């Protein structure tokens, strides 16, 4: 197979986007999904053989000249190395499945074709990002994904909350993107290239690395990490992701759980050599990831919206990945990225199925759904177990790898925090499971029914993935995945530790057990605990008050500054220029004079000064000829005296 076929992978969904956006509403209507799914599947079909070729040790690259920069030119192209192959594998499969699901979920929506157009555009962007061979193309795809995210979060834009959420999402991630952009500029200044393989080449060897100023590298690494913080919803830019749940659920699954948010982690993985070149940046990454993992898990404990719980869970898990990368655990982080994509997508789709079946999102209104929606419930529980880290599901292996990395690299604090978070993860997931699927139905108005096959089928496919995908990274396959990635970027590997594994399992099991005890048997305990730890409970419920802080200290001051500057512009700058140098003392007068004249229709803005002079000079013209003569005479005298140098 010609590797250049890989260009088709993003291009096919892009075609679907173009066709859907132009013709969808009028001609395709409900057939719009067919086109998107077909192109996505075709992309999958093209991509998978290439992925497997890479898994077997292949390596593909190709490029063409795109943008002339400086003396040289930026070349665009693809780079299929182990890292991108893994993601390509995941994205094509998960993407296709989710679209199949969505074709059922979104049925009957008036903007059906628009939805699939956006999703196809997103697929195109995500796939471009995955296969891109340089940061510019990466960034472009990255931003277009942000756009799709924006469009899809705001898909139900008639809802005020959705309109606000999409704005917030775009702007918050944009903050990180600006950092990313600056990081790229710095990198380009330092290395003169943005091409991944060239960067690798420049930084892989000590001698070449020494030639590059370290300060620039530190800057570029940290600024690029801003991009990750934004996109992967890490603290302090995580606030957009929970709100992003305003979008349709398949979108939450695809973009805000499986793929796009993982792109931030992928960015760190892509820039891994840079971080490796300046290891002093790593602790920052670890710290932010670790804190995020803990904080989000803690918040998830008290949330009641099914999608929000999952959203915080996503944030938390992304925190795990980032932490792993921060501890040089490229393999662990990426591994978790892949497995997480499957089970988290599954969780969201399951949640979507629940919502589709019950039309409510608050878990306090649910309960006892297991009977009514067995397919959904079983797959959902599988995914939850995977997320909680119960062996031998995929989540266990990847999470264990992260804990191992923390433990083995000597970050003991990190290790314990992550273990605690794992406990909380298991707890909140099973709180969710128990409250949703078990017990009695709490709200009599809810009439649940199982979703159609077009939706449950993808659930099962993903469930299979959630179960089996852990094995390539498990001791059973001799940590094939980690070694596979180490081909691309060398990084430290660790031997599995029984202690770590047992800690992980204990945390997971105890979490599930506690959840079972409280939410299956003694629901009132929950209230008692909340009362007992009121400050902590409030902190969790109010999401650490981050939104409030932003509102108070960032957004409102910005808007106020805008207004102040506008006022400044309208009065001072305009006034100063108009005043033609009369100085600030005159400003008030200038302004008054101004308004008056505008109102009078005399568009007179030569300045108060001119006007003033005019009134003075005008008065000289008294109409009395002898006055004129006297003035002329005195003027004449002045010139005589001056000319004769008498004074």
């Amino acid at each position: 197979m010609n590797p250049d076929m890989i260009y088709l992978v993003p291009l096919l969904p892009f075609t679907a986007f173009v066709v859907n956006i132009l013709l969808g509403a009028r001609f395709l209507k409900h057939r719009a999904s067919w086109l998107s799914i077909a192109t996505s599947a075709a992309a999958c079909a093209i991509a998978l053989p290439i992925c497997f070729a890479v898994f077997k040790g292949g390596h593909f690259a190709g490029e063409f000249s795109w943008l002339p920069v400086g003396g040289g030119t930026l070349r665009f192209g693809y780079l299929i190395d182990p890292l991108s192959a893994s993601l390509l594998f995941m994205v094509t499969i998960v993407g296709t499945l989710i679209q199949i699901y969505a074709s059922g979920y979104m049925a009957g929506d008036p903007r059906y074709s628009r939805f699939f157009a956006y999703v196809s555009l997103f697929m195109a962007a995500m796939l471009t990002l995955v296969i891109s061979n340089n940061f510019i193309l990466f960034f472009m795809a990255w931003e277009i994904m942000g756009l799709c995210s924006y469009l899809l979060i705001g898909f139900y834009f008639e809802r005020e909350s959705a309109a606000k959420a999409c704005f917030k999402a775009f702007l918050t991630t944009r903050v990180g993107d600006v950092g990313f952009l600056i990081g790229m500029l710095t990198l380009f200044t330092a290395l003169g290239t943005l091409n991944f393989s060239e960067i690798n080449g420049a930084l892989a060897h000590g001698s070449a690395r020494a030639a590059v100023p370290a300060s620039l590298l530190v800057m570029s690494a940290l600024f690029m990490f801003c991009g990750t913080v934004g996109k992967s919803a890490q603290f302090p830019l995580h606030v957009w992701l929970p709100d992003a749940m305003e979008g349709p659920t398949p979108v939450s699954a695809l973009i805000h759980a499986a793929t796009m948010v993982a792109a931030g982690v992928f960015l760190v993985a892509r820039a891994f050599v840079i971080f490796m070149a300046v290891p002093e940046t790593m602790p920052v990454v670890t710290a932010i990831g670790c804190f995020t993992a803990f904080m989000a898990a803690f918040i998830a404990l008290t949330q009641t919206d099914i999608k929000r719980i999952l959203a915080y869970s996503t944030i938390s898990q992304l925190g795990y990945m980032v932490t792993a990368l921060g501890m040089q655990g490229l393999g662990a982080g990426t591994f978790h990225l892949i497995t997480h994509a499957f089970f988290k997508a599954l969780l969201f789709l399951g949640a979507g199925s629940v919502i589709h079946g019950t039309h409510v999102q608050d878990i306090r209104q649910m309960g006892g759904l297991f009977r009514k929606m067995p397919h959904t419930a079983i797959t959902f529980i599988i995914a939850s177990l995977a997320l909680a880290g119960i062996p031998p599901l995929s989540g266990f292996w990847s999470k264990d790898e992260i804990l191992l990395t923390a433990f083995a690299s000597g970050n003991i604090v990190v290790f314990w925090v992550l273990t605690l978070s794992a406990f909380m993860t298991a707890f909140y997931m099973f709180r969710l499971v128990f409250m949703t699927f078990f017990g009695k139905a709490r709200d009599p108005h809810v009439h649940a029914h199982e979703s159609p096959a077009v939706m449950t089928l993808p659930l099962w496919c993903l469930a299979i993935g959630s179960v089996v995908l852990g094995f390539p990274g498990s001791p059973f396959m001799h940590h094939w995945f980690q070694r596979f990635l180490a081909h691309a970027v060398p990084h430290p590997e660790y031997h599995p530790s029984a202690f770590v594994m047992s800690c992980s399992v204990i945390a997971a099991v105890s979490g599930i057990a506690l959840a079972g005890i409280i939410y299956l048997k003694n629901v009132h305990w929950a209230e008692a605990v909340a009362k007992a730890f009121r400050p902590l409970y409030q902190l969790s419920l109010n999401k650490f008050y981050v939104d409030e802080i932003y509102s108070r200290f960032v957004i409102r001051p910005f808007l106020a500054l805008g207004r102040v500057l506008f006022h400044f512009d309208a009065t001072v700058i305009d006034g100063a220029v108009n005043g033609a140098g009369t100085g600030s003392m005159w400003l008030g007068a200038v302004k008054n004079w101004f308004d008056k004249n505008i109102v009078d229709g005399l568009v007179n803005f030569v300045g108060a000064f001119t006007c003033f002079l005019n009134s003075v000079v005008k008065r000289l013209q008294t109409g009395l000829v002898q006055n004129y003569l006297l003035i002329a005479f005195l003027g004449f005298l002045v010139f005589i005296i001056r000319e004769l140098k008498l004074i």
Partner: protein
Amino acid sequence: MTSHLLSWITFTPLLGAFLLLCIPKRAHNSIRWIALATTAITAALVGLAFSLFRASEAGFQLVERAVWIPQFGVQYLLGMDGISFPMVVLTALISLMACLGSLTHIRVKGGREKEYYFLFLLLETGMMGTFLALDLFLFYIFWEVVLVPMYFLIGIWGGPRKEYAAIKFFLYTLAGSLFMLIGIVAVYFASSPHTFDMTLLTTMKYGLLFQKVVFLAFFLGFAIKVPVFPFHTWLPDAHVEAPTPISVILAGVLLKMGTYGFLRFSYPLFPDAARWFQPAMGVLAVVGIIYGGFIALAQTDFKKMVAYSSVSHMGFVLLGLAAMNADGFRGALLQMFNHGTITGGLFLLVGVLYDRAHTRDLNDFGGLGAKMPVYAGILTFFSLASLGLPGLSGFISEFLSLLGAYQYSKLITALSAIGILLAAAYLLYMIQRVLLGKLNPKWAALPDMNALELSTLVPLMVFIVAIGLYPKIILEYMIPTLDGLLGTIRGGI
């Protein structure tokens, strides 16, 4: 024809204008058709020039030279190179779109169409001439010729405060250009032999003090046009009050005349002064970017928001110029082109909405996305282009500008990047207020865009996407000239 192609490009609109004078006032349809045909023919001639223009050459092409005022050595000297070529294309494109946009808009505004199109075509001649003239004297003449029709176009067909806006625009620009005239004359006398010929002037050297003084004189003329903070206050008024097609021309072409002046005249003529003023230019650029962005954020008037966004976006042009390196110049020139298409489009969109709703208050709208899906899509498209979404043209130029500037000053670049953030903020905030949310029942009857309105926007979108995806198509026309220019400046060290 091809031997005098540039003259034809410049004066075809004028011929059309005079043809209009012969048409009776009441023959509205013929007037419209003649105007449209004239702009279309001009655009076609530009297309012909496109086919004749050799992208890989740095020097002036299609040069026309004739003695005009022998007493001063003033020549009728037209020529095109990689700097003027994109601007000419932009002018032809924007004029055509604006003319199309005028067809309905001016009819709505109530008559006087003959005068309108006469002035419109006169304006086009002025703009073309400005970008093509290679003789400083001739350049100045075209530069001034632009002012007068603009005054009338704003003053007669503008909004409620049109008179104020028109005279403000006129006086600001005139004041600036008078100083430029002094500079031009000074250059003439400083050159030996005395000449206005750009092709000769660039080969001469002047003392630093002289360069500084004359650079400042030119700067006043150009900076007011761009407009550079703090000379920008005419812009919101003029843009807001002007009728839609004229706002489009103002933002699309007129602002570029200022930055074009920097590239064409200030930099090659006074390289030492340019370097001396480099920090000042950089600071002004960044102030403009951030300042314009913040003020745009505070606007409730749709058009004013777009107007202030121009201040911010033109800041990126200045930033690229201040960088004084290959990337910066490319970014600046490309941004000039892109800003023309993008902001031109945004103004057209504002006009579309205003023609229907007769208000521009952002807080008054809401939920139009459901009512006018095509409009919503296109508005979103242009907003995204404006906020620098990769894949659309705005990103490429801003990226290049920043890349260039980064090599000059990290701090300035980092601050400018805030402008990108602000752009996202004010544009999305606008979208949120106009398109998203609940539909204001007042607007329940608004029709979506019609074919004529679409036809004004689609060509712009084509350019935006094409350049965004594959910038080389236009950059390769610019690069040889810009590199040559850079060589000239560097040679002056």
